[in-house]
């Protein structure tokens, strides 16, 4: 007698790690960043550089000509100039390399756990369309908030939190306060 040949079935994604185990891993990466580089982790800094550089480049190519680079709105903007005002490459930065690393690390982890899949993540009672509209709106609002605060959950809350920076702790508490204040009104999106 032979066992019935098992047909290959799609294996389920692996469970997420215990939060404390993942947190210790994340904390050790943050500590390594402090010990080796003398600075912490960040995510919004790279996206800020890409956004300003992108606007600057499109602007310059629309203008055309040899002087276009020095005439862009971003370069004449006091905030944009700190990124595109000098001769250096604004994307040649620690945080931009880190951004690429985060993409790779997330991809590898997701793939190994069979979690890589194209799709839209949303709550059970909402629509894909509503989810994408809110994701866009949330991104815009977060972008403005992160720039005003000089960082996000990575660069301020995590990094500044571990270095006991006063402003970072104020930021972190305010993120939770703002989040909980608004959460009630959007509860139907996720529950």
């Amino acid at each position, binding site marked *: 007698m032979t066992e019935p040949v098992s047909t290959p079935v799609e294996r389920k994604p692996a469970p*997420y790690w215990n939060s404390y185990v993942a947190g*210790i891993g*994340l*904390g050790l990466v943050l500590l390594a960043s402090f010990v*080796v580089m003398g600075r912490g982790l960040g*995510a919004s800094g790279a996206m800020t550089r890409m956004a300003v550089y992108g606007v600057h480049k499109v602007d310059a190519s629309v203008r055309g000509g040899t002087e276009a680079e020095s005439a862009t709105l971003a370069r004449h903007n006091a905030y944009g100039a700190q990124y595109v005002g000098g001769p250096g490459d604004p994307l040649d930065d620690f945080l931009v390399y880190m951004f690429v690393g985060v993409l790779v690390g997330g991809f*590898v982890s997701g793939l190994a756990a069979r979690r890589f899949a194209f799709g839209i993540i949303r709550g059970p009672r909402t629509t894909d369309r509503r989810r994408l509209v809110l994701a866009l709106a949330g991104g815009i609002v*977060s972008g403005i908030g992160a720039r005003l605060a000089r960082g*996000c959950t990575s660069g301020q809350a995590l990094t500044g939190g571990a270095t006991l920076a006063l402003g970072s702790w104020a930021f972190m508490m305010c993120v939770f306060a703002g*989040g909980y204040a608004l959460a009630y009104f959007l509860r139907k999106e996720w529950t």
Partner: protein
Amino acid sequence: MEPIAPIAKVFEWGPQAGAAWGALLGCGFGFFLEKAGFGSATTLAGQWYGYNFAVLRVMFTAIVVAMLGLFGLHYAGLADLGLLYVNDTYLLPQAIGGIVFGFGFVIGQYCPGTAVVSCATGKFDAMVFMGGFLIGVVAFMFGYPAIEGLYNATSMGRVMLPEYLGVPAGAVVFGVVLMALGAFALTHVLDRRFGNGKEA
């Protein structure tokens, strides 16, 4: 003992080290964010609606681990905190920015780092969130002349909690550990109260 950390500062590494280590540290950062479940907005939303407290647990665990390591090395004389980059404090814009960022978090259910990880595992909502974030940055840049005053208000420089509170660093470190443990305990009480499923 002579401090040997931060290594890049003490041994005056060049900029190439920043590129290589940035990428390497980023890989670890992304890896653990994904393992924690932060590639899914469902996990992140759980923090606000009480069905999954992974955000608080992972974040405070990471802060405590890095803080204990950093201050432990400092007390052992191995790390020079004076060479460490510490975010400058601008209390008012950071508080307002935090509230606005919290709104954005709840509306979009990602933050920048988690969106990158979600994006890396194929999620369109995260890609849209990141697109929105870029738009938000550009909007901030063009609106900057109008809010420059607020952006630079309450500039306090490099302020760490121990000096601000006038207590030894060890006391603040101990306080943060206690606060984290209290917060963890609270989330487990809430898990039982809400009947949340087994914690992954």
